[in-house]
């Protein structure tokens, strides 16, 4: 976003700097583990075994990674336009509401029609919730960061109201809708691949993972290979130049935000339609915020986002298993790691670039 203080070769900029900052963040996490009296090497071994040690573990890891791909891409697309969308949580919440309403109200439709419609409803919900802040920034000059924060909270109260007062299941103890019809939900991966002769253990991994992979390709095509993507990147690099070049800054702002919100909606597709099969409170569970770390670590590029999402998937699944063996290291460790990665790869980027440059012996200030 800001001008780079030191020039680095592309491979160092895209590969080495994120690698160094992520390693530093993991070292900080290791210090926290030592601080609470556990052995970080043992914890790492348990974590890796828990995340990658079996077919079931890998299924869970990829299921978590699916969430992070969607939220990471959402932040990345907005970032390319120079916009900072921290409203992923709220946009995913609205997407969940959209998907749930579609699954409940359109239940008489056949699954082949209902599932795509519900996915579209999720995308539309997320897009709409991001479009309003985008529109306010484009036409009224209200800063998108603040409005998306506010929209997170408005979405949080909205979903409580809907679930408690309107669409909640009166029979259940907690605020949630009734379960969707069996044909309204996404197919789990182990059932999807069974006809091909592949026997996979039962995990929450479902066809939303394929949608996430498609989104990675789609975002790459959109941002780096399309006219619109070029316009979005121009806007992000220099809004005034974009304006002089005859691009409509306000239209691009709104389009970028809408695409970003629609991608955040993928989180709802995976969680609500793929796993929970009903709408419940707090299904976003902070994935939207970790998406910021994923996007920053991945340098906004789909390949980087995929790798970063995989790392966080490993941390999430491995962290759950680790918490099982070592109750003092809870899943909140991942939140800490996410925070430190955001700090190192995002806010202290300049420092790490300088460190890498010094390490490579280049870019010394004259």
């Amino acid at each position: 976003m800001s001008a780079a203080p030191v020039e680095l070769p592309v491979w160092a900029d895209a590969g080495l700097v994120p690698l160094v900052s992520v390693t530093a963040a993991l070292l900080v996490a290791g210090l926290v583990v030592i601080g609470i009296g556990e052995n970080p090497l043992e914890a790492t071994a348990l974590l890796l075994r828990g995340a990658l040690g079996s077919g079931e573990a890998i299924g869970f890891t990829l299921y978590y990674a699916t969430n992070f791909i969607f939220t990471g891409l959402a932040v990345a697309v907005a970032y390319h336009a120079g916009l900072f969308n921290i409203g992923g949580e709220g946009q995913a919440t609205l997407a969940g509401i959209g998907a749930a309403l579609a699954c409940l109200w359109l239940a008489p439709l056949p699954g082949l029609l209902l599932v795509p419609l519900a996915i579209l409803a999720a995308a539309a919900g997320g897009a709409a919730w991001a479009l309003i802040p985008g529109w306010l920034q484009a036409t009224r000059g209200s800063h998108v960061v603040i409005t998306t924060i506010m929209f997170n909270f408005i979405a949080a109260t909205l979903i409580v109201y809907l679930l408690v007062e309107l669409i909640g299941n009166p029979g259940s103890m907690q605020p949630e809708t009734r379960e969707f019809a069996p044909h309204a939900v996404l197919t789990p991966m182990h059932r999807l691949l069974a006809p091909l002769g592949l026997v996979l253990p039962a995990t929450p991994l479902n066809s939303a993972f394929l949608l996430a992979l498609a989104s990675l390709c789609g975002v790459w095509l959109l941002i780096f290979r399309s006219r619109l993507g070029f316009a979005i990147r121009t806007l992000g690099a220099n809004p005034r130049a974009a304006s002089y070049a005859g691009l409509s800054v306000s239209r691009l702002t709104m389009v970028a935000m809408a695409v970003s919100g629609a991608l955040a909606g993928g989180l709802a597709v995976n969680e609500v339609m793929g796993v929970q099969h009903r709408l419940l409170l707090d299904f976003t569970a902070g994935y939207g915020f970790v998406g910021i770390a994923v996007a920053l670590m991945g340098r906004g590029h789909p390949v980087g986002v995929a790798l970063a999402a995989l790392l966080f998937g490993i941390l999430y699944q491995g962290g759950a298993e680790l918490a099982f063996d070592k109750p003092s290291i809870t899943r909140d460790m991942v939140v800490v790691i996410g925070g430190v990665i955001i700090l190192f790869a995002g806010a202290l980027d300049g420092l790490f670039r300088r460190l890498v440059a010094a390490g490579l012996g280049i870019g010394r200030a004259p």
Partner: protein
Amino acid sequence: MDWAQTLAVILDSTIRLSVPLLCAALAGLWSERSGVVDIGLEGKMLMAAFASAVIAHQSGSAWTGLGAGILAAVALSLVHGFAAITWRGNQIVSGVAINMLAAGLTIILGNAWFGQGGRTPSLEGEARFADLALPFAAWARETVPVLGPLYAEMVSGHAAPVYLAFAAVPATALVLRHTRFGLRLRAVGENPAAVDTAGVSVAGLRYGAVIICGVLCGLGGSYLAVSQSAGFLPHMTAGKGFIALAAVIFANWRPVPVLLACLLFGLLDAVAIRLQGVSLPGIGLVPVQAIQALPYLMTVILLAGFIGRATPPRASGLPYVKER
């Protein structure tokens, strides 16, 4: 029920609920007036709440707890300052990082140290701030009609941090408006190049503002854990740092309007708790969620410029690069 008594009780809880908002909002005002945007108010309050609860429990003194809370919040402030001022990093990104760091660390450390799912042991006696009775409170309640109960409930009978928080409002206004430091601090938020030309350190002023921001966040967070509640609960700030952010915008970055905005948001909160399940004549059942969403909705409407106009300090959010 006696209406004066009801009013006094609602206003009393308004005061209690607006204190954390007020501390965080004043903290945000200091930081943003110097040109450093801070969306990490929430995380700093949370960290302060945790540190103060832990130290108050260990030392048995609420004041030591408050000191620890302030130190913890200032430490996070300095991290933000290091990223935002020294390394000219993205201030929003740094704020998000601080929020996540605090949310995760408080639970992990609390769980590792006390094993109660992130809670800290409950504070008793001297480890918690006691309510102070102002002179004549009991007498006024008995003898003076209307104003008596108001004085006894609303003005008197709060803990020390409450009075500190309210005292911070005139102090902030005075320092910002009438001192050399305040003038320079405001200038650095509007036009840092001019301050730099005058030979005053931009980074020094901004670090000063960020530290004051930490102290105030520390006060607000400690109040939550050591005065309002008797100990730390995971995620106990519950978005108050963000409502405070809204209050700063709502008040157009000015101290006295910040006080009014925080009291308004505190009142909304108090009314929302009281209206739970109550049917109002003529309106019917008001959904609590609608009242809870009001501060955020009002802020968005204000930011959109449909009523009034929010004008942030001009250099806010921009790292200062010396021209060469």
